[in-house]
């Protein structure tokens, strides 16, 4: 038994969970083609959720602030991107890959810059006065969430909005007898790029070193003379921008968005962050992929259970590891 756990630990420990999940599902599903489709769908959903959740987790890890208003960034990102895409509808529908991708780039850039600006505003106006006071933080960010949802309703109205997808992301590739939607591949790739970027910045750069030191012991970093409040604002802005990009990607995935989108995704994001453990992006990635895979497998195997599947997954993992799979915060 001990040998077994040592071997598992050497092979990757908790990182083996998604693999185990995928293998178990393979046995249960039986048909390799549908299994592959579901796995790819689950991975790409996981990556999009990772984009939304990583900011929340980082902000919590560094600043000890849990932003209940995070979902507002997701919704705003989705709506800003949708607006830009519909304004550039000529480019989006054009047959040239260049114009298509320019429209996409503009949409994502709009979402990113919105996320950066809103994150700056949020941090300096809403959150700064209530550091170190969890109760008031929860209340204030909740209040901010209410206000931002109402602003979305006032600006875009309550009716669902159709999101245009750039032409070159439509359709599917057929590999053997498995058809893979291009949009899913794109979402997966973008999430992967974001993860690698975050990972490199956090683990290989000087700023990342400071951020990790700040997570570990804030006072010490301050005592060494670093301006940790600037770091806070930076992390908050990046986290919000990631959420906005996640929202924009999700909007393209759903193709029909309502102002309730942020609230719906927020629950999934919370579950991911709880499963993964607050404060670490590896944990968040792990949690996001677990949630994405479980949602797709359970949706196929037992559609009735699909709604509760995330909740069940969270309960099991919390019973096993009360602080999540890979917490960075003590």
């Amino acid at each position, binding site marked *: 038994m001990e040998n077994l756990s040592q071997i598992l630990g050497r092979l990757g420990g908790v990182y083996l969970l998604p693999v185990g999940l995928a293998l178990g599902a393979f046995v249960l599903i039986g048909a390799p083609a549908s299994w592959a489709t579901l796995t790819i769908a689950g991975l790409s959903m996981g990556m999009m959720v990772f984009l939304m959740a990583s900011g929340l987790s980082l902000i919590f890890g560094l600043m000890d602030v*849990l932003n209940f208003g995070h979902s507002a960034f997701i919704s705003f990102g989705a709506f800003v991107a949708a607006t830009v895409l519909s304004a550039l509808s000529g480019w989006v529908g054009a047959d040239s890959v260049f114009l298509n991708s320019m429209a996409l780039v503009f949409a994502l850039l709009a979402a990113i810059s919105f996320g950066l600006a809103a994150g700056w505003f949020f941090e300096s106006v809403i959150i700064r006065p209530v550091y170190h006071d969890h109760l008031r933080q*929860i209340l204030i960010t909740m209040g*901010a969430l209410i*206000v931002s949802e*109402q602003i979305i*309703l*006032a600006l875009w109205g309550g009716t669902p909005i159709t999101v245009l997808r750039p032409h070159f992301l439509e359709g599917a590739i057929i590999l053997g007898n498995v058809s893979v939607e291009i949009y899913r591949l794109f979402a997966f790739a973008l999430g992967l790029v974001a993860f690698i970027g975050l990972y490199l910045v956090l683990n290989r750069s000087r700023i990342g070193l400071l951020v990790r030191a700040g997570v570990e012991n804030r006072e010490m970093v301050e005592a060494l003379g670093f301006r940790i409040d600037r770091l806070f604002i930076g992390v908050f802005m990046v986290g919000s921008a990631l959420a906005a990009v996640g929202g924009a990607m999700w909007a393209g995935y759903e193709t029909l968005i309502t102002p309730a989108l942020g609230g719906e995704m927020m629950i999934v994001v919370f579950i991911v962050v709880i499963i993964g453990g607050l404060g670490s992006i590896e944990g968040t990635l792990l949690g996001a992929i677990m949630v994405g895979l479980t949602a797709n497998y359970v949706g196929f195997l037992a559609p009735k259970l699909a709604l*509760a599947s*995330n909740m069940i997954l969270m309960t099991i993992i919390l019973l096993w590891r*009360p602080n999540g799979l890979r917490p960075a915060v003590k």
Partner: protein
Amino acid sequence: MSAPVSKPTVGDIAVKTAVLLIAALLCFAPFLFQDVRALEVAARICVFIVLVASYDLLIGYTGIVSFAHTMFFGFGAYGAAILLRQMGPGWDAVILGGLAGVLVSLVVATAIGLLSLRVKAIFFAMITLAAASVALVLASQLSHFTGGEDGITYRAPDVFKPSFKLLTDENGKVLRLFGVKLNGKLAAYYFVFASSLILFLVMLRVVGSPLGTVLKAIRENEARAEAIGYRVVAYRTFVFCLSAAIASLAGTVYAVWLKYTGPDTALSFAIMIDILLMVVIGGMGTMWGAVIGAVLMVIAQYYLRDLMGVAADATASIPLLPELLNPDRWLFWLGIIFILLVYFFPKGIVGTITQKGGRG
């Protein structure tokens, strides 16, 4: 922070006078305000006072933030609603439904509490939020039981029918007292009023008891309370269960009054936000705050929208402003008020007033 026994301050007396006045107004509401809408408002105020006070037991007295309070409210409401539809109108259905609601609430609350109250407060908030949203989705999906998005319509026990005559005059017509018909509607209102009053008094007793003191100790300094020998997790779980049970009973009462239960009236996240606003506006950590917060918010809900409609028409020529002044956007303004209150008056109306005159 609740009533100091020895020297009541001026503000303290003011708050208690206000609460007594509210209680008197609610007690004679059917005679004072003789229109249907006012009675609806009064009943909603009664139920929400209980709901908000039970939430205050959690957030104000123990310092834990739960977002699952409407879930428990919904359990009670749906328990009564489902049984009233299955068994027909009768007291047995109401009592069984209420008990079933309380039982489910207790089981779920214990499970959530033991699972997550050990860890950080923030974890607990997230987990309750997730649980509440799952409950909401389940209610709209399991439509054979819950009626889905449409909810359930049913009949309340016969005593509460508007056509039921409590007292009759010699001609067999409904007797009138001060011009008010003594019919089932009146009985229903007093059912709501009396059960709310009882539940509120129970909570007042709990808060004043030694248990209440322990809870405050846990809120003020968790480590110290633990060191003195109080088992913090057990106390927290107990309070969570207690407030869940009371919320569930409030849900049953409200279901009997409305004769309709659906996601919007019993489970929606909007109600949770209402409760939060009421607690913060009234003042956390005092039962009186719950009364004042609930009264102000419910009245605002019913009458502020009319006012906003007028304001929106008046500003129709200015861009964006009419959109924000649209009666549907009233939460926008409440949200802003909420943020400002948390910044500047974290103790709420009651907490701030009670402090006034403290040194005078």
